């Protein structure tokens, strides 16, 4: 199996003859693989969604230009790996950027793994290197990425290659002491840069030394894996023992305050172990092969040996034949790689999760048609419902289409979840409604929980601008001007602030200010309905507050309150009733047998017909709601009639 351990003359000859073409083939395969890998991450997975998942991904590292941001990273081991990870993370803001970063890191890990295995005499296990891109692909498909851990691994892997290159040269010349010195120097450097990543470096160097048969060096490397973090981390940098050993490892939760999603932390941890385990397997294999050869030499039972030779000789012959067929080998190897990658991509692909992230991402960027386009495939979570309702409102369809989508009374404002940061988009809803203080409070807490993500800073800057707090806004804008994704916007805002400190000509700011709540009602958390009523009382033209209040009443089946608000339609410039308003009116009229003042509007005859049909269907099933469910859902699953009866919506086939 291993080139050195099983190194027969035939194999050497085959290797020499086909070495160049094999290398070329391997390079071509790798090139094709990584190109396809990049395109898949970019176009299919769309890793940019990780960046736009503020509130869903808790450990996304923010990066800012300048010494003030950089200097703290110098003060503890592993800080530079975190800094580098944050630097790389900023490219995830661009469609092509994140995919490129993941591809480059996957390639680096794979290339270093190949090089380590080659020099360790385990070339036949080179295929293991593809575990990294495949593993990272699986991780990225779930829209998480262990930025610091992968960066620390990349540093450890690169340092291992460097050490092996130095060690092989020095050992050839018998300069073992200098080799250990080189290891010591690299140890200090790697530990300072990558902290926990150093453990991998030390273990890999130990594995390499043990495979070379240098037991003492291997032992020293293993001992250093324990000693160096303690000496440098605990005694010199005075960090806690936990920090000394774990910063930079996938298990470390230091990057974000909130624990990162641990959905695929198992894969991340497994990736860390791939190369050390491979070297371990190679070592065991070599020991086993050595013993086998030894046993064979010692035995004198020639007939048995001859018998044993039979199948072994056949296997060897097949192997030689196979190794001489370069094209076949390349093709088969490529097919296996393609199959494994396709399997990983297929198994890890989660269309619902992708759509959920897309909804969140589009909602963050106020891309309302796109939200509605992908929301059908997304999970039926409260945050998706919340985003859909915002999209419907901003496209003028909330009153006429909201029950064509899954709804829940608690999802409209998510007001019962004020302390739950996972419902991040609700803060944007609060901002649009005019609940600027509530939004500002929640954005500020997001800053604490998720770190200074540009999307959070952007919102905090806007909230302060709306409130006329130019001083505070400038600080958020100042920070944003040091990011790659928002620098232009921030600098533009600062320039506009210079020219007009009140931003009285900025339409978006003026619009927000016009709906801003004026009444101070000190409270911990006010109920959503009360807030909407206040907004509407203060500003009768706050159309969003009106529609959300009407939606609240419909969702809670408070139709008397709903009907009482109809007199505001004229002031808000409504022509005909939106469809769901008519449906709610009809339900109210049928249920209470009261006439409703329609403010000069007509009920659409089609809607009257629909409620008649609805009623007939229900009567046909003797008013048995469960019996009528399927039929009513098929015909009226997008109507308020159906929601009012069943509490379900968006179920029309």
């Amino acid at each position, binding site marked *: 199996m291993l080139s050195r351990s099983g190194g027969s003359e035939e194999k050497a000859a085959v290797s020499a003859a086909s070495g160049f073409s094999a290398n070329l083939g391997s390079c071509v395969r790798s090139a094709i693989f990584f190109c396809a890998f990049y395109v898949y991450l970019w176009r299919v997975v769309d890793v940019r969604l990780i960046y736009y998942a503020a509130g869903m991904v808790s450990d996304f590292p923010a990066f800012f230009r*300048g010494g003030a941001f950089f200097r703290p990273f110098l003060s503890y081991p592993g800080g530079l790996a975190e800094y580098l990870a944050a630097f790389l993370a900023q490219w995830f803001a661009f469609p092509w950027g994140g995919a490129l970063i993941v591809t480059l890191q996957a390639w680096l890990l794979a290339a270093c793994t190949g090089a380590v295995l080659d020099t360790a005499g385990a070339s036949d296990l080179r295929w293991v290197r593809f575990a990294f891109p495949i593993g990272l692909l699986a991780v990225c498909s779930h829209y998480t990425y262990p930025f610091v851990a992968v960066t620390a691994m990349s540093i450890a892997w690169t340092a291992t290659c460097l050490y092996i290159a130095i060690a092989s040269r020095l050992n050839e010349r018998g300069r073992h002491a200098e080799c250990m010195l080189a290891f010591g120097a690299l140890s200090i450097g790697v530990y300072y840069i990558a902290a926990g990543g150093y453990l991998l470096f030390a273990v890999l160097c130990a594995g390499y030394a043990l495979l070379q048969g240098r037991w003492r060096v291997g032992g020293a490397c293993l001992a250093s894996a324990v000693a160096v973090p303690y000496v440098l981390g605990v005694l010199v940098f005075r960090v806690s023992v936990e920090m000394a050993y774990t910063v930079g490892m996938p298990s470390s939760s230091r990057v974000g305050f909130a624990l990162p999603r641990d959905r695929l932390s198992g894969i991340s941890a497994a990736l860390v172990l791939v190369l050390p385990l491979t070297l371990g397997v190679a070592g065991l294999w070599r020991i086993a092969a050595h013993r086998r050869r030894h046993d064979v030499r010692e035995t004198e039972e020639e007939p048995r040996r001859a018998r044993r030779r039979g199948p072994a000789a056949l296997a060897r012959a097949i192997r030689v034949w196979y190794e001489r067929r370069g094209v076949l080998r390349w093709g088969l190897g490529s097919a296996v790689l393609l199959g494994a990658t396709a399997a990983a991509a297929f198994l890890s692909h989660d269309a619902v999760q992708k759509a959920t992230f897309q909804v969140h991402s589009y909602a963050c960027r106020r891309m309302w048609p796109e939200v509605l386009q992908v929301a059908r495939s997304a999970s039926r979570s409260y945050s998706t419902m919340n985003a859909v309702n915002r999209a419907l409102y901003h496209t003028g369809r909330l009153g006429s289409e909201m029950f064509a989508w899954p709804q829940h009374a608690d999802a409209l404002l998510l007001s019962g979840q004020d302390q739950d940061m996972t419902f991040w988009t609700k803060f944007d809803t609060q901002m649009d409604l005019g609940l600027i203080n509530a939004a500002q409070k929640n954005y500020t807490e997001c800053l604490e929980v998720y770190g200074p993500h540009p999307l959070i800073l952007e919102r905090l800057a806007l909230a302060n601008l709306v409130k006329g707090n130019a001083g505070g806004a400038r600080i958020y804008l100042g920070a944003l001007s040091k990011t790659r994704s928002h620098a232009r916007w921030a600098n533009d805002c600062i320039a506009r602030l210079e020219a007009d400190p009140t931003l009285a000509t900025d339409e978006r700011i003026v619009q927000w200010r016009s709906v801003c709540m004026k009444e101070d009602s000190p409270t911990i958390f006010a109920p959503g309905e009360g807030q909407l009523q206040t907004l509407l009382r203060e500003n009768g033209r706050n159309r969003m507050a009106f529609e959300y209040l009407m939606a609240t009443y419909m969702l809670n089946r408070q139709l008397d309150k709903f009907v009482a608000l109809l007199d505001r339609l004229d002031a808000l410039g409504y022509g005909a009733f939106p469809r769901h308003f008519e449906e709610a009116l009809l339900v109210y009229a049928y249920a209470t047998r009261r006439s409703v003042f329609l403010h000069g509007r007509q009920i659409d005859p089609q809607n009257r017909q629909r409620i008649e049909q609805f009623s007939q269907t229900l009567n046909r099933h003797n008013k048995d709601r469960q019996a009528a469910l399927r039929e009513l859902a098929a015909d009226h699953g997008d109507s308020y009639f159906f929601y009012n009866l069943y509490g379900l919506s968006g179920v029309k086939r």
Partner: protein
Amino acid sequence: MRRRLVHITILAAVLAVGVLGYGSYSRTRGHPDSLDALARAGRLPRIGPDYGGVVVPPNIAPLNFVVQEDGCRFYVRISGERGEAIKIAGRSDKVLIPERPWRRLLEANAGRSVRVEICVQADDGTWTRFDPIVNRIAAEPIDDVLVYRKLHPGAGAWGHIGIYQRDLRGFRESLVLDNRSFGNGCVNCHTFCNHRPDTMLLSVRSSEYGSSALLIEDGDVRKIGTRFTYTSWHSSGKVAAYSVNAVSQFFHSSGAEVRDVVDLASYLAYYVVEEGVTKTAPDIAQKDRLETYPAWSPDGRHLYFCSAPMTWSQRNVIPKDYDQIKYDLMRIAYDVERDEWGPLETVLTAEETDRSILLPRISPDGRWLVFCMCDYGCFPVYRADSDLYIIDLEAAAQTGRYEYHPLAAANSDQSESWHSWSSNSRWLAFSSKRDGAPFTRTYLAYVDAEGNAHKPILLPQKDPTFYDSYLRTYSVPELATEPIRTTKETLARAIRRSESISVVPPITMATPEAGATPPQPWMTERE
């Protein structure tokens, strides 16, 4: 091999000389030939931070600044009556003053003035000379060390909070304690005995390790198993007075400041170090009043504190008239040797001032009492109307009247709070939001012999644009004469330790119980 080493050494030396030489040349080249011949702007230059017309400690780090005037080349000359002038020229509008010449200039001119002359070259090559900025160098130094807490302005989730110390003579800042080393708990007010950090108290709250106070004495760290909120050391070091506050945070649906705080219950207690026990007295823990913010007089004979009447009956809900809660300033005599409390006196009432009197701090010479006043409430940091005021205690002792006046030059239209005296009673470090709420920054103000504050300076940073994008706030700046030498890991270990000095709180409050671990950080947290 050796020859190669020699060559490399020579090359490195030549490069180093070149770099140093270029640096020195570039700092002074490109300046106008004669300042007198230049066109005058007829006004002061705009610089940021605003270090114009200030009183400067003679031992402060360079006041680096940005010239906020349009130009392509800048020339700055900083000179005093004595010593060598500092000349800086370059294309950058950032003026980074070299530390050693700056220190020499300040030392030579302590008690005198320095002039900062700024010339700016326009794109067409013409130079403009602005009126010189004149700053005074105080004769009295500020304490060398400033200890403060840095946190994100929300403070509702115990994100990243740390206590840091800064050597004011330079830009070196070091970490004293990081909340990430004890499970992202909260680390609170730090209090020194007589401005010396070898005796200090530090409060921590952690859902994992409980609420406790760390007592640090000569490097020995002990964990006291109860929570101190606001603490003040008696000058003897034998006793520390502290408040126990049932803090409740709430939010405003409109207005500039979102957050607000009310103490639903509070009282004062004191910790006797030798005995390891906490005690209280009836006059500092009245059932119908809210006592908070203890501050010992430097002679240790009086404990000053703030007190407000409890006008509502339900102790676990925010009162409707929360904006009518106003604190009086009180003091009570104390004999540390006999551990006896004297009569309670009213120093200044909210009725007289029509404002809430908070955070009394007395200068170490015992003459001045500086406090905050805001329209209502117990937490001046959240009140934009909070300003600093001063009382001359010596004059009050003679006249029997506590007359106060605002520290007008130190105040702004934003919140001023968290003030701390220097050990020589000449400097105040305080928090202000004048540069952009909700971010609190530290300012240093000189207080002269007449009790007048002078225009304060923003705590200088090496990069003069540092604060323009800095997203954490500085709170509770405390001046100290020496750095805290106890390491962060020793402090964190002490917090994580399960053993602590077991103390029984002298009073158990009604619901919610003060001193108990809060269920959620946002409910009780504040800057």
